[in-house]
């Protein structure tokens, strides 16, 4: 590079000698004045206006061209370093995708556990390298298939799990001691139940917990902010269960991520990229403080905290977001909390392409959108990836649509050569500038959350809900004003009659699950179930870690609805402060 500074440079060294600044100050001055001349002489008059007419999706002004002069006090070793080494901007592993390709982790979930088991086996046979289970709404909100609240939703949008027997059926014949399994459990309350079922199921299959690799979502914002519901647990209690799960997993399940801080759904609900990361990281900070208060050593649990980001249409902003988030988390864990192990400073994350960005009109266009978004995740250094299917705006994916998503990942991984070089956009004047700006904006928004009393307060008062809703409203208006261009919708609107699309039809699940539940009640020891549930109720208020007691109930074949009812009674309900 023309202006790169070597340590032996004699001229203009001054204070720069100690650092690893990429660019010579004198050279930067020369570039700046050349840039001014270039603007004067080369740019047409209409391009000479104020720079601030182009913005990233989160509102950061962008120039038409970036040069070394936009790097400011950019210091290679301090700001970028090497992959696998601090500050991890370029990636958390020294060999990145050469050593460990990103995990192909496509979501799957519909019908009863037997139906979903078939889809899992299909995906694995076609080359998926991880499992990602999405549950139906009754399961996610802690109702059994027989509960009146569940009516009409059993097995829709996800697989239904009523008892540990369903967990057995879901993973029947799948080697969970060798393949990693992500359980998209949303709420901490439901995580305690589904994780307990998973762990007891593994024991009953004779599988050692040490071998179990995977993730539970377990994010209290999913309960109290991102997804609304008729019956919601108070934020403080939901947060406590979130921490209970992390505390329980630490030291028992060395390969399990007890939480996946869910930026993705925050984003899909309305936030921009900066808020997405800032809110999720704020939750990470609160969790760390709470667990340290409980007496845990930070290096005992921090290495298993994981994150989940959304990939929307602003290609470079998404890449910069991923890179910036790694640097922010590193600084917080190292400088803020004094973590010693490098693994505690690793921001490991799963990414999913944006569902909100997909269109019902001309659905095959969604394949192009998702591919570009997925590529941003790979340039951002993600650990695992889900690519949304083209029929997302209609229903859960058909087998064919799910296969196209899986194949898209394989094409990125095997055909394009993009995984052969680590952080290939590192050093791009634009990407580095944007990464810096994202980092600053993330800190700013975290500070805003602190200024309203911290994350739990921000939820409890509805401040966060309002922030998300305002941003969603702004976005919708910008779309309707034509400011956000959507191909086929408001940009070259499609005039063709809607082509028929094959839409997934759900298997009938409700009656089957109800029959299984009747059978379950006939064969289990109902008195013993009751005893364990009453014990669990006492532990809700005692403040002890809840997990061992949930496992007791689960082992006796208590249903998800029975356990969640105990929570609803013990913790009470909270009014969701929306609108």
């Amino acid at each position: 590079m023309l202006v790169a500074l070597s340590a032996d440079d004699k001229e203009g060294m001054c204070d720069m000698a100690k650092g690893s600044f990429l660019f010579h100050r004198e050279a930067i001055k020369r570039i700046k004045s050349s840039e001014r001349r270039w603007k004067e002489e080369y740019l047409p008059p209409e391009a000479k206006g104020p720079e601030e007419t182009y913005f990233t999706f989160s509102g950061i002004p962008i120039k038409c061209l970036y040069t070394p002069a936009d790097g400011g006090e950019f210091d290679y070793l301090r700001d970028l370093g090497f992959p696998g080494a601090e500050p991890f901007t370029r990636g958390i592993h020294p060999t990145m995708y050469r050593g460990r390709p990103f995990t192909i982790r496509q979501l799957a979930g519909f019908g009863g556990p037997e139906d979903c088991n078939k889809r899992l086996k299909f995906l694995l046979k076609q080359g998926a390298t991880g499992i990602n289970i999405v549950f139906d709404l009754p399961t996610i909100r802690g109702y059994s298939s027989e509960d009146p609240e569940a009516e009409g939703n059993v097995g829709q949008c996800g697989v239904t799990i009523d008892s540990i027997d369903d967990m057995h059926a879901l993973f029947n014949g799948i080697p969970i001691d060798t393949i990693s399994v992500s359980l998209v459990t949303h709420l901490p309350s439901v995580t305690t139940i589904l994780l307990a079922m998973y762990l007891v199921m593994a024991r009953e299959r004779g599988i050692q917990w040490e071998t179990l690799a995977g993730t539970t979502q377990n994010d209290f914002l999913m309960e109290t902010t991102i997804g609304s519901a008729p019956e919601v647990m108070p934020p403080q209690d939901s947060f406590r269960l979130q921490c209970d799960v992390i505390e329980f997993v630490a030291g028992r399940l060395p390969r399990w991520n007890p939480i996946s801080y869910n930026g993705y759904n925050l984003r899909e609900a309305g936030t921009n990229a900066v808020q997405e990361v800032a809110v999720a990281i704020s939750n990470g900070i609160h969790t760390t403080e709470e667990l340290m208060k409980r007496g845990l050593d930070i290096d005992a649990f921090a290495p298993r905290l994981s994150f989940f980001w959304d990939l929307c249409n602003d290609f470079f902003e998404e890449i910069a977001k991923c890179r910036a988030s790694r640097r922010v988390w590193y600084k917080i864990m190292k400088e803020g909390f004094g973590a010693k192990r490098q693994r505690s400073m690793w921001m490991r994350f799963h990414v999913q392409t944006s569902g909100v960005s997909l269109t019902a009109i001309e659905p095959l266009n969604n394949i192009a959108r998702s591919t570009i978004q997925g590529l941003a995740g790979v340039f951002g250094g993600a650990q695992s990836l889900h690519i949304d299917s083209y029929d997302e705006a209609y229903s859960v994916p058909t087998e064919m649509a799910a296969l196209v998503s899986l194949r898209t990942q394989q094409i990125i991984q095997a055909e394009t050569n993009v995984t052969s070089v680590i952080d290939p956009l590192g050093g791009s004047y634009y990407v580095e500038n944007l990464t810096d700006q994202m980092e600053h904006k993330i800190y700013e928004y975290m500070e805003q959350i602190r200024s309203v009393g911290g994350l739990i307060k921000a939820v409890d008062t509805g401040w966060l809900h309002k922030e998300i809703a305002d941003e969603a409203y702004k976005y919708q208006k910008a779309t309707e004003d034509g400011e956000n261009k959507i191909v086929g919708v408001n940009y070259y609107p499609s005039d063709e009659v809607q082509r028929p699309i094959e839409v997934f039809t759900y298997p009938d699940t409700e009656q089957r699950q109800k029959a299984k539940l009747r059978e379950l009640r006939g064969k289990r020891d109902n008195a013993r179930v009751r005893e364990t549930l009453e014990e669990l109720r006492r532990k809700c208020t005692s403040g002890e870690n809840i997990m061992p007691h949930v496992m007791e109930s689960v082992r006796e074949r208590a249903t998800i609805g029975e356990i969640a009812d105990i929570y609803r009674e013990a913790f009470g309900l909270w009014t969701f402060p929306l609108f």
Partner: protein
Amino acid sequence: MRRPIKVIIAKLGLDIHWRGAVVVAKFLKDVGMEVIYLGNQFPEQIVNAALQESADVVALSTLGGNHLTLGPKVVKLLRDKGLNDVLVIMGGVIPPGDIAALKSQGFHEIFTPHSSLKDIADFIREGVYGRAGPRKA
């Protein structure tokens, strides 16, 4: 003077996706309608609220796949209670094949992801004023 159109907006049953419902609620309020956002409710509670509030419009939002099971229940309960003038609409991720079924069971309109806020507001105005004539305060 016309009194403002009164709209009840509810998330149907357990559906968790509130973004669309809240965005529509904000817009209808901005264009002068009175909006009561119920949050997540089941058919009976939604209809009770419509009765209590003398709502002109019941707008349901669901992206959770329960449109065919719980949706028609709301319409039936409204009619059972004699609320025959209430405009009933739905928005969400609804497979194209289900739209006709919902309309045949009493929904006046189904809005999908590409419907504009303005279209929704226009439809409501036309539906309420067109049917009942201008309302007096």
